[in-house]
Every structure is written in C-alpha cells, then in structure tokens.
C-alpha cells in the first residue's frame, strides 16, 4: 500500500491545480463529418420555436440518429438531390432522423442509407414533409431500413412531392394517425410503396407507385394500440407494375404481401378508390381482403375488426392485373390451383363480417364496383374453400356516398379531387 502514497500526493496536487484554474480546453472545430453532425444536432436541440434550420448543399456523412424535440421548427435543405444526409455505416440509433415535435416541417433534402427508418416522426401534430427523398442507394435489400418516411401516432400530416426508394417495409407510410394528405409523391422499389395503416381520414392522391412489391395499401393490423383506421380516399394515382419480388425479412407481416399487388384494402372500412390508373400488377390490381392471421400468429385484440366493408371503387382505368400471381405464398398458390394460373384485376375474398350472430350479406359488406372499364373481377370465396367463386363484377355494381375531402391546417382549403 505504501508504494501508492507518492503517486496519490502528486495526483491530488495536480487535480486541485487543474480544478482551480478551471481552464476548459474546447477542441477547435473543423469541418469534419463529426463536427457537422454535432453542430446540426446542437442546432436541433437548442432551436427556439419558430426556428428555421438551413442545411447547405452537399453530401454529409452522419453515423448517429439526428433528433428533434422542439415544436415549430423547420429543417430545410437546398433540394432533394443537393442536400444529402448520408447515414451509410451508421453506428448508433435506429432512425436516420427522429422527430417528436409539433408543427414540424422538413423540406428539400435527402436521407440516404439509414440503418433503420429514414425519417421517423412520432406523436406530432401538424407535420409537413415536402420534397424529401429517402433512399437506400444499393436498391432493394432485406437489410435496408424498414420505413422511409414514417410518421406514426401523428395528427394532421402532409407528405407531398417526396420520393421513397427501396425501404424493406414501406416507403411512404403513415400509421396510427388521424387526418392525412399524401400527394404527388413517388414510391419505387419498396416492399410497400405507400401505406396507410391503422389511420383515420386520409387523402392519397396524384402519387406514383411503381416497381414496388405492392403499390398503395390501406389496412388495419391487430397488434397496435391505435385501432379503427377508416375513411381513406385513394384517387388520381398511378399504380403501375408493382412486381418487385418481396424482399422484406420473413418475420415481418409485410413479407406476406403478394408480389404484384396494385392496391391492397384489408380489414378496413370506408375506402374510396377512384380515377386511378392501375395496371400490370401481377397478382391483382386491387386486392380486397379480410385480415387472416397466420395460424401461428392469432389475433389477440378485442378491439380489432379483421373484416373489410364499405369499399367504393369507381371510375378507375384498370388493366393487365393478375397475370402472374405470387405463388411463392401458399395462400396464393392454393388459389391458383382453384382459380387458374391467372387471377383478375380486382380480387375479393368474399368474406363478410357476421351480423347479430348470423352470416353477413353483400348488403352489409357494401363492396361497390362501378365504371372501371373492362376490369376483370374474382370473388374467390375464401370462407368456403373457394366453392362459390364468382367472376361477375356486375353483382357488385353499386354506389356509396362519396367520402369527404380532407383538409389540413398546412394546406388551408381541402385537398383536390372530387
């Protein structure tokens, strides 16, 4: 023990000399990537409400999630191809950017190669995402981040003129949210191009979804706290050739999305699909279905409704669907054995929610198809082992009241459309 004494003495003296001089040695700043990241993160933390944080032109490397918690902040770049935040080789944090704030606007920049989700916005009101590109630059890969543009549990969400490429779950997504406009976006080579999940009151229009596994999907899933998604309008979109082989990790629910899905309508009510161009999606241009969980993943949520009802599909230009269904999935393979090697433009499982303990009727289900040109149709009667399949869309010719347009504080008047 004695041998320590001199050392301790010296150390103690040095310690106190340093403490009393308290000269802090700030490291000088240079333009290294770490400094850019640190400065930007500091700006985001210190931002006062109302602040506009401008990011110059250039490609900036970041290795850790950027986060924002201050309300009323705008982050603005110089353009989605000019200001690039690259998270290639990210070391910490799952998201590229993580925002938990109200009255948030982000525009004119790109987020590339995030380890996980590219731009995640949680629990915010009045969220605007404009001219933002999110991309995994090596193209579709199982190891890409799951979500591109990813507002969840938000209210009043505007996503416009943005681009999402190669997300391993959904490119442009809104989940567990209320009052949403997604317009003029482009989703390419994602598993799900544009996704509206457990969300109420959404207008989805003038988007292009192409070369995804599935183009645009509106649905509810059981294992989420916010339930009851409904009132979704999908119109004036181009949903073309979404035939990229599903590359989601197999444990993900989205891995069950058939390759070649144009529009998926699942376990939801009050959906209006109109004036879209929907073509050449190889499993189906529109797939209307109950949520039937895998046998080993049963539904355990009393609030959840797995059935689909009140879907009004009209005035669309639909062609070339169902030419080559995704037989990789056992359910689809089973259906090809019953229905043939090609399906139809519009695919419906025919499952209707029971009413008062009795089987529901078509009048209860309110699936309406009208004026969709020469679109072909198949009800494959999933509940009865494909026994009473029907191909006559005329039986479903009916109309439903038009759903109301969505308006947002960010856009002033209601969005376009009917």
């Amino acid at each position, binding site marked *: 023990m004695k041998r320590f004494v001199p050392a301790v003495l010296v150390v103690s003296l040095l310690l106190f000399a340093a403490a009393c001089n308290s000269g*802090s040695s700030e*490291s000088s700043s240079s333009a290294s990537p770490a400094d850019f990241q640190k400065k930007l993160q500091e700006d985001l933390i210190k931002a006062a409400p109302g602040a506009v944080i401008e990011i110059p032109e250039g490609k900036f490397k970041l290795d*850790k999630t950027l986060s924002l918690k201050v309300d009323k902040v705008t982050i603005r770049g110089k353009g989605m191809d000019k200001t690039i935040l690259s998270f290639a080789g990210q070391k910490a944090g799952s998201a590229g950017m993580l925002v938990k704030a109200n009255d948030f606007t982000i525009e004119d920049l790109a987020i590339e190669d995030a380890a996980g989700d590219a731009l995640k916005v949680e629990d915010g009101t009045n969220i605007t995402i404009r001219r933002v590109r999110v991309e995994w630059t090596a193209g579709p890969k199982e190891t890409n981040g799951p979500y591109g543009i990813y507002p969840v549990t938000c209210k009043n969400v505007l996503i416009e003129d943005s681009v999402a490429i190669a997300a391993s779950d959904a490119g442009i997504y809104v989940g567990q949210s209320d009052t949403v406009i997604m317009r003029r976006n482009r989703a390419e080579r994602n598993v799900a191009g544009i996704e509206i999940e457990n969300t109420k009151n959404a207008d989805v229009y003038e988007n292009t979804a192409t070369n995804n596994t599935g183009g645009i999907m509106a649905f509810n899933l059981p*294992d989420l706290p916010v339930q009851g998604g409904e009132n979704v309008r999908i119109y004036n979109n181009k949903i073309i050739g979404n035939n990229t082989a599903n590359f989601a990790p197999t444990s993900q629910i989205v891995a069950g999305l058939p390759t070649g899905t144009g529009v998926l309508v699942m376990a939801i009510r009050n959906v209006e699909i109109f004036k879209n161009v929907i073509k050449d999606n190889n499993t189906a241009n529109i797939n209307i279905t109950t949520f039937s969980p895998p046998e080993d993943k*049963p539904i*355990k949520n009393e609030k959840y409704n797995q059935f689909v009802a009140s879907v009004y599909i009209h005035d669309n230009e639909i062609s070339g669907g169902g030419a080559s269904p995704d037989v990789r999935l056992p359910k689809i393979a089973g259906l090809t054995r019953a229905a043939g090697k090609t399906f139809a433009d519009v695919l419906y499982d025919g499952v209707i929610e029971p009413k008062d303990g009795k089987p529901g009727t078509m009048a209860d289900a309110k699936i309406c198809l009208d004026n969709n040109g020469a679109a072909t149709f198949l009800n494959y009667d999933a509940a009865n082992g494909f026994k009473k399949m029907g191909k006559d869309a005329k039986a479903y010719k009916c109309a439903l009241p038009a759903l109301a347009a969505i308006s947002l504080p960010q856009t002033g008047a209601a969005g376009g459309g009917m």
Partner: protein
Amino acid sequence: MLLRVSSWMISFMNYRRWSEFDMISIRNIFRLGLVLGLAIGSVSCDLLGSGVRVHLAEPFPAKLSKWRLFEAGAMPLKPNKGVVPYDLNTPLFSDYATKHRTIWMPEGTAAVYNGEDVFDFPVGTVITKSFSFPDEKNPGRERILETRLLVRAKDGWKALPYIWNEAQTEATLEIVPDPVEISFKDPGGTQHNITYSIPNANECAQCHERHKTLLPLGPKARNLNRDLAYAEGPANQLDHWTKIGYLKGAPAAAEAPRVPVWNDPTSGSLDARARAYLDNNCAHCHRPGGVAGYTAFLTEFTETDMRRLGYFKPPNSAGYTGNRPFDIVPGKPEESILLYRMESTRPKERMPEIAREIVHREGIQLIREWLASLPQEQTAARSAAATARPRDAAKEAP
C-alpha cells in the same frame, strides 16, 4: 435481506465505493487521496462551499462543481451534505459501466411515496448518476466519464449531461457530448475496446420520457427496497429516506414492493429476476406511454397480460428480427426475438436501442434461462385457443 458490505461502500466514511474491481487498493488510495485532497482543496479553491446550490432554470451551470453536489475535488466523488447515495436492486445495463447514484432534495421537502411508479419528487430535487470504467492508464483506479443530472425544475424535469475531463477534476455540461474511446476488462475478464456513446439531451428523453414528460426511471419503491451501508450504519433505503425526511407516505419496507437482484438467485425466483431485468432494461421504453409503447410489447414488472409481455406476439414494424416469429416463444429462447435483439449490436436491431455497445453476456444468460423455463405446453395450447377465433369467424361468413 442480507447486507453485502463488501460490495458496497466504505462503511465508516460517508462516501461510496468507487470500484467493483479492486476494492482494497482503491479504498486505501482514496482514504489517503481524500484527506490530502480536502486539505489542499479547502485552502486553495474558492469553489468550495457548504451545501448544494440548486439551479432550476436555464442557463444551467456549465460546470458540475457549481452545483456543489460533491465535495470539491474529492475523487472518488464524495457526496456533499444532504446528498444521499442510493442503489437499485436491478439496474439498467450500460456497457458494464459502474454507476453511482445520488439524490438531494431542498430542506423541508420530501418525495411522495408511490408503490407502483416513480415517486413524486419536490421541485428542486437533484438526482445524479455517474458512469465510470476501470482506468487503463491507472490500474486499480476508475475513470468517470459522465455525471448525468436530473433536476426537478418548476416546469418539469431537466436532463443535464456533464462530461468529465481527462484529469478528472471537473465536468462540463455538453448538449451533444462526443463519444469516448475506452478499453477495459469487464468483471468476467473479457477485454472491451469500444466507442462509448454518451447520450445527448434528446437521447436522455428517449428513455426518460413518458407521455412526452421527462421522468426519473430508477427511484421506484420496488427498485429502492434494499439495504445500503450508510455512514450511520446499514439501513433499508426506503426506511432511511423516510427517516431523513426525503420520503413521506411510505409503508414499512417489509410492506413495500421489491424486485429481486437480477444476478442473485437468493433474492428471488428465476421468473422474478428475469422480469426485474426486463423491467429495468426494456420497460423504460416498452411501457404504456413510453417511447416504444406503440409496439404493444410491454415489459413492466407489473405487466400481467402475457401477449403484451411478448408471448406469441408477432412484431409489427420491428424491421429485421432474425426471422424469428414472436417476441417470446415460451420454452424456445432461440426462436424468441427478445433474445435476438439482446444479442445483436447492430444499430437497428440491438435493444436497448441506445446506450449499449456491448452484449450483456450475463443478462442474456438470465433471459435465455428464463425463456427456456417457460412451459412449452403453453405454446401449443395458447396457439390453438387463440387461433380458434378468426377461423370460426371465417367459417360463419357466407
């Protein structure tokens, strides 16, 4: 409950043990160092004051010493008068950091007891947690990297990360601290060379927030209900806090809830120890209102819904899960996502998501044993029972 003085503190002095690695030499070094340090410090340094100086609004002091939470210059840190060290039965794993916790409340104020949750602390409360690692340059000693303050200001809690200088003489408030390269051996003897990442102010909130409100995590009855060696002798922490006026409304410690010590089989069953581990290593986010509340995978010690706890719960938006089907498959650790996430260090897979670079070998062992111990017959039974509903519903359809 057994008191383990040897794993605690130097009982006759009111300061805390600073090492889990070399108790004897550290103890002696610091007895000496402290006496010398205090003697020198008291005459040469006007930073010395008596008593904590609390700051409740911006701008917060740039230097930790301004708070006077610790006696000036003492290393290891010696809590100032009224600053009470505390420990938790089962803590959060942070890359094998040794953590030193203290709490201080203004004269005449007390926290209000809550049997289920964090106590309601009075305005002015200052909680500290200091993180240290074995100092490779000074064998037998430790190096503090950071002291995190949680301050109960008038408008809620503030999280303030203070980063220690190389000389260990002062810590500076940094909103976005730089990562630190460290090398050390863990208690099991494994060498680690890591980039230790210190959370920035936003990242503090990532764990500490519930329903958008920043809250302390550790100081709950069930975590604090254990003995600690105080200067006056060993006592139960809840009893001690009541005695010194820091806590009101608490029952006798024997009546209060308690979680076991995760790695002490004498303190509780395997199930209880695993649940305590999940409570303190996952539930800060995975609880209702927590950052990961939306995932519906909820791991609080008090959770009773097995689906929410992960039994046969498929992931929703989890990203890559090693192609495992459920958060928990009873009896099958290798099929449970929970274990996969604990074993991964890849940023988008690892859990906890931040503030963990190293795999917690011993924690994984505990959770693996626990998952293996969960009755497998439940697997078939639960699966069959739960599958009945949707299939029957489909049959009823026309």
